[in-house]
């Protein structure tokens, strides 16, 4: 079902991912934190369903978007806190 693959950029790195997955699932393919907490801790998705806001990243220039709620789109630019 996921034969179709898309290319997206995460922190400048281009990766191919199956269509239909979430931005969160795409980011998880790379070794990096999604965001840094207010005291600097690495954080990653926790609730998986848009409640906890731990997976916030910048998507196509718009900051503070929940990666678990957004499906990948071809050419999407994602920026994490590393």
């Amino acid at each position: 079902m996921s034969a179709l693959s898309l290319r997206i950029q995460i922190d400048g790195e281009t990766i191919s991912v199956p269509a239909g997955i979430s931005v969160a699932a795409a980011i998880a393919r790379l070794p990096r934190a999604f965001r840094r907490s207010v005291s600097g801790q690495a954080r990653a998705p926790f609730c998986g369903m848009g409640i906890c806001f731990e997976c916030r990243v910048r998507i196509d220039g718009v900051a503070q978007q929940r990666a678990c709620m957004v499906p990948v789109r071809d050419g999407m630019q994602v920026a994490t806190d590393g």
Partner: protein
Amino acid sequence: MAEHYDVVIVGAGPAGLAATEAALANGARVACLDAHANLGGQVWRKDSAHGWPRRARRIINTLLAHPAMTWLPQTQVIAADAGELLLQDEKHALHISHNALIIATGARELLLPFPGWTLPGVTGAAGLQALSKQGWPLTGRRVAIAGSGPLLLAAAVTARRHGARVLGIYEQASEAAVRDFARTLWRWPGKAWQAAMLRSQLADIPYRCGSVVTRAKGDGALQSIDIDGPHGTQRLECDQLAVGYGLVPNVELAQMLGCALRQEGAHPCVNVDALQRTDKSGVYAAGEACGIGGRECAWFEGRIAGLAATGASVGATLLKQQQHARAFAATLHQHFKLDPYVHNLAMPDTLICRCEDVPLRALDGYDDARSAKLATRCGMGACQGRICGTALAELGRFARSGQRPPLFPARLSTLGEISSLSDTEGFVS
């Protein structure tokens, strides 16, 4: 101008879909919206690799093809007033009005703090299931599943289907309680079959009762967990921990509309009558928002609400089915009741508010959410207290304070550019 619908249904899980189906069948013009990109909710979430479960796919495809159905994906309610909603999708603010509103907002997971719960690699149990279906890479990953309830089994099956090595399932309820629960299942043959299916798929995976994950450890990401069980403490190396202690109703929309709530344990749920009517005229609620009852219950209640909201009569059989399903939920709660031990896992330095990094210690001396928030920032972050407030209520500290717009964080343009909902103040705090 607000687009008008006969019935607006918030939430596209089983309750929302059943309501949509029933309302459409009665000739209503229906809008169904959900924060997610696909219909199905959590339990029928579309899997990026495997699609929807068969039954869900059939229902969803039929509904999407219906000419009187408007599906609003990735759409959240930001503010609500009698007869009107301010919505936001990925790009725009929308303004819709309705004759009847059906709240089918489902549930979120009960996520309780313990040392290390903020480490990347630690998720909810339903959380891992949701992530698996989103395409979260699990192939070859060592996964531990913990917490409470039958959901753990479902999470294990899903994780395995996505290539995870499930190391074990750690249930906080005692072996005796779980055995008693299994004995009651004959009353719900569907549930018994479901449980048997899950168990048979997981036959080779250890299922440990009376076991609680007390700590997650790792340097920047999860490396190991400590599990406290009947035979002492065990250390387990793993890449992913999925830990959830059950479900909590999403009542925020109902609360904003001023609907009466009732407490179920430490958490509020929407109070409805036999026809799923709240105490606000034209506002119905169905499914998990009315108390955790499971998928079948949600389906029956959604159907009742959809019929009632369109003036159709609700048959006695349907009402009986709903009551029977609700009774199952009560049994479930009774047998998977949380051991007070899991309320006391957080240490003084364990972060409770993950948005603002507020440790448990900082909350000592505060006995209401507002004072604690003003003094410590607990609950001030992006989740609006959904995680810490729910956990603190469960821990017996204090309940979350009232609900104001925005119901979820919203683009300022949504709040600032849409024409007014009404010219007079009507928002309930």
